[in-house]
């Protein structure tokens, strides 16, 4: 079952930047999602944890549709959460949509 949650006004996600969204998983454990905005105003959401050493991806430099992890510069695709070769790893992705100027996130119900 899908579960769309209103997150923030679109304008409050910086271009080529991100915001941290704190939420809970199915076991009520807190975790962070990074909500990113590319230069061409697409919004992506991925788990805020780098597959390498857990760095907070939302704090990285965003370029194209990738983010460079602030800890050791792994390049993570915002589209599929996968690390750029030759690094290997993956972080979870979430669907997003923009409606009436607000960003929504699809969380697992």
């Amino acid at each position: 079952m899908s579960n769309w949650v209103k997150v923030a006004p679109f304008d409050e996600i910086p271009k080529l930047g991100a915001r941290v969204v704190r939420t809970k998983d199915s076991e009520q454990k807190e975790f962070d999602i990074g909500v990113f905005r590319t230069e061409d105003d697409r919004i992506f959401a991925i788990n805020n944890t780098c597959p390498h050493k857990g760095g907070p991806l939302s704090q990285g430099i965003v370029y194209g549709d990738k983010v460079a992890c602030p800890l050791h510069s792994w390049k993570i695709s915002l589209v599929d959460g996968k690390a750029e070769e030759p690094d290997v790893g993956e972080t979870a992705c979430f669907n997003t949509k923009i409606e009436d100027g607000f960003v929504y996130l699809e969380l697992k119900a």
Partner: protein
Amino acid sequence: MQKMKLVVVGNGMAGMRVVEELLKIAPDIYDITVFGDEPYPNYNRIMLSPVLANEQTINDIILNTREWYAENNITLYTSARINKIDRKNRVAYAEDGTSAEYDRLLLATGSKPFMLPIEGANLEGVIGYRDIKDTDQMIATAKTHKHAVVIGGGLLGLEAANGLKIQGMEVTVIHRNEWLLEKQLDKTAGKMLQKSLEAKGLNFQLKQNTKEITGKDGRVNTIHFADGSSLPADLVVMAVGIRPNFSLAESAGIYCNKGIVVNDTMQTFDPRVYAVGECVAHRGISYGLVAPLFEMAKVCATHLANFGIGQYKGSVTSTKLKVTGIDLFSAGDFGNIDDGREEIVLHDAVGGVYKKLVIKDDKIIGSVLYGDTADGAWYFKMLRDGKPIHEIRDHLMFGQDSLGNTGHQGQDKAAAMTNEMEVCGCNGVCKGTIVKAIQDQGLFTIDDVKKQTKAGSSCGSCVGLVEQILASTLGGGYAPPSTSKAVCGCTDKNHEEVRAEIRTHKYLNIPDAMKGMSWRTPNGCATCRPALNYYLLSTWPHEAVDDPQSRFINERVHANIQKDGTYSVIPRMYGGVTSPDQLRKIADVADKYAVPMVKVTGGQRIDLLGVKKEDLVDMWKDLDMPSGYAYAKGIRTVKTCVGSEFCRFGTQNSTQMGIDIEKAFDHMWAPHKVKFAVSGCPRNCAESGIKDVGIIGVDSGWEIYVGGNGGIKTEVAQFLCKVKTSDEVLEYSGAFIQIYREEARYLDRTVHWIERVGLEYVKQRILEDAEGRKAAFERLLYALQGAVNPWAERVEKREQHKEFETITI
């Protein structure tokens, strides 16, 4: 869209390197067909010598397996020699009747061994040394025959001779010159090499010319020389040189002149036809070494990919001999010509070490190293960069280790190399790339490093160095990312070119700069954006737009990110001086926010570690102290000693001097972090000798030292000048820092910048040009005018800095 057709003639190292590079940058634009006349997939031709020497097997040296061709949808025809090209209809025909149409054709037909035109050269058992077939034949012959003669004492000949000896044959090398490897070595080194090889059991006949070869039953059995002597020979290997293989191109009417003539984009006179590798004549030169081929391949691939960038401008090459146990390195021009060149020679005949550097017009133009080649890469780098050497001339011969590398005793060569120094000359892999790969990917073995970086995967002569880097990297210590020649993959421009264009075209923001300089990516990458942002701001202060999204997180949020995603907060304590009031405030804040660790830093201030991002702004508000910029590529601290106010030895008020400097240069961004220190007497308690700018008070004034570094590689600061007043200290050190800010590459510390431009240059700008010095200092003060404390700014304008707030859902 229908794909274009690319046909590659030649399945060797050069052709396949083009294909590999092409697949990397434009995997989808061509259907690729490859023809090779050997029955194997692409293999590493230069490793044939180790195969012959029983150190590797054929399987070890296969570079691309048949599966690789299949996975990349490349049609591979082996044992298929192209013998006709119909350029009008754009079809290539193979001897076996296969044919392929092309939109682009790549010729990589390599070279052929040159066979001496003498009687008997066509007898069975007289061969060149070029491919697996030749190697197999040598190994097979060694099993049944005894006497081998190698004609030619060059690199290939000696490697063949060494291999044949290991295979159990009696080997004699015939050489025309007075000494071996005359293209790579001078006479002394050549003679030393001969001695080492004789100790391995090889025989030599020098200044000897072959007259004819005679045989029995169609097979070679004797070789005759011009002086009338002869030798028994069951196998004759001719290694007297190679000739570009361009007969196919010539027959197709493509312009050739001792090779297929190409321009700087590797294009032949037929614009649809490109050529790379040993078959090519570029600016009249044909190369027989692998590094230039790979450089050509890179350029060629960008043009095939329709990027239209990259030019090949020829190569300076260096060589090593792949005979295990013999270390020799040579590069450049080391001939004995009387044209004003000078030589520095070190010769230890007993120890088997010989080093010669040839210097002309204050630059290294050639080097020969025998027995100890560890500094080869360092000399080669200076040779290629054309670096003036007079400042280090006294120490040059003793290697890089002799240059102010204190505190690292026992460290090996690899540790002393800078990041942009090349480790693998074949693949152009720098130390920085290898280190980054080791760290980011958690590599532990040589094979991993080879796979991920390609370093050491071609000729293998740098594997020892790669191993050292692996050892020193895994041993601990973080190396900052290197700045190679181009800023990053988004552009071909180097740092200096980017800076110049920003100035000329007055770019004031990143999008304009990228557009104006034809950036390849829409908004750069994590490497170029911070550099561009810095260059814009330092070139056009108060005019250029600072882009927070192009700054590394630390500079964006004015705190240092830690491994767990928390931050550290370090307030300024000017000159390392604090007060009970400040300390109380810090203590209260640490309590209020339950700061997990409070630590005194090496820069004489206090670090609050483990702060949550969402607490930062509140904490700054409570602290009400200026940011210490401990996270910045910019001014960090000014470390001071107690000085004349209290110290019984102090000659100058170093504490106040430090406070004045820190206040004057507060908020300054720079290519990398900048650390100052001020000591009040030559006892130097503030450690001024290892700072970017170190100041030492003496009775009659202040001494200023620059370019020190206490990091990974300790560098002792060099004396710049002595001044009388504290105002002069500000002016001279400020001018120095400003010129560094304007001219160094992003992520260069002062030491790296000085290493490149030379201290003489710095002295000339600061000491000899008084007007220029004053102007530089003024520019620095202008750039810093009106700078605000970033913490206070964020407290005040909280609403504009949503970044610090977490959204909870």
